[in-house]
């Protein structure tokens, strides 16, 4: 059997963790995880999340019956930053955990993601609607401004030369007198 590459391993990781792969495939993945640190990291993260799935949820439910309000508050407050990937590992973990446990929270997460998709589609549509090409005008305006600056420089140079000459002439006249 050909050794699987990283991409294939990643696709199969979830099944590997669940133990639903054939012995042969499972061995191949185990072999790959031994030699590839990147996939090994992914495996660890996924295994961790799966752990949350099972043991932690059970424990959580047993302890609390339902979610603590503070956890739900944290979820609502940080959901937006979560989808922007702007939270630290610890907060990410808390959000994910609640999304798994609580149906309403999960719906909120799905809604915000769907809404973002609508925004993105809308933005892309607007971008594609631009018919005018501004590039030539921009370069022309730039050249025009450059010329204007250049001619104003010459103008000032001329003015100062003129005033210096005037001063010299006046001094000469008064000097002679």
């Amino acid at each position, binding site marked *: 059997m050909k050794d699987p590459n990283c991409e294939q391993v990643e696709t199969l990781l979830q099944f590997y963790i669940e133990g639903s792969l054939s012995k042969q495939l499972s061995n191949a993945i185990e072999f790959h995880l031994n030699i590839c640190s990147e996939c090994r990291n992914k495996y660890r993260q996924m295994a961790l999340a799966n752990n949350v799935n099972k043991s932690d949820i059970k424990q959580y439910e047993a302890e609390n019956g339902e979610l603590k309000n503070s956890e739900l508050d944290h979820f609502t407050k940080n959901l937006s930053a979560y989808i922007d990937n702007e939270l630290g590992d610890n907060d990410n973990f808390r959000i994910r955990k609640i999304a798994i446990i609580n149906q309403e929270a999960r719906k909120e997460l799905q809604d915000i993601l769907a*809404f973002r998709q609508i*925004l993105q589609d809308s*933005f892309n549509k607007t*971008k594609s609607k631009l018919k005018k090409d*501004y590039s030539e005008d*921009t370069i022309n*305006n730039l050249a025009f401004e450059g010329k204007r600056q250049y001619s104003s420089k010459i103008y000032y140079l001329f003015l100062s030369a003129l005033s210096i000459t005037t001063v010299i002439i006046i001094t000469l006249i008064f000097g002679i007198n």
Partner: protein
Amino acid sequence: MGSQKIQYKKLNIEKLIELAQQDDLKALEELIKIEQKNVFATFAYLSNKKEDVSDLTQEALLRIAKNIKTLKNPKNFKSWANQIVTHLYYDELRKNLRKPNTISIDSETEENGDLMLKNLLQDKKCKPNEKCLALEIEEIIRAGINSLPEPFKIVIVLRELQGLSYEEIANTTKSSLGTVKSRIARARTKLQQSLKNYI
């Protein structure tokens, strides 16, 4: 000439910036070609008046072209260009504030904006809980974003349209990271609420 043009098209944005900084106008032109869609879309969602979008786009692109040499690291182009766009937008807001008969940018606009959105939806005979066929979703989103109070509008556009990080947005809008985070969250909630019946 033709083959040269193709070469510029093949260059990545960082290389184009590098060349543009060495006075290569062809590279600069190509860079503007790439960036103009972003700038145009940004103003399309930010500007209260549709007729201003083209002028603002042209002006922002000119400022980008004129100041390209001041960009130190080509990797920061996106955030740098958005700073120019944002400054221009703020300038424009200030100008409009001085003119009478324009909608103010203060917190009062929240009501004005909502009204604008409602008017737009009513004009097109859109009813809540029905997909609004007379209007394109894009137009509804635009009205929705436009109806947001000023600080929320800019952060949501910089985040969702331009894909800037919270830190970059904080730098661009001269606010703290925490402020950016809560503004984006509130902008999303507000938008979601005001549009949920129509899309």
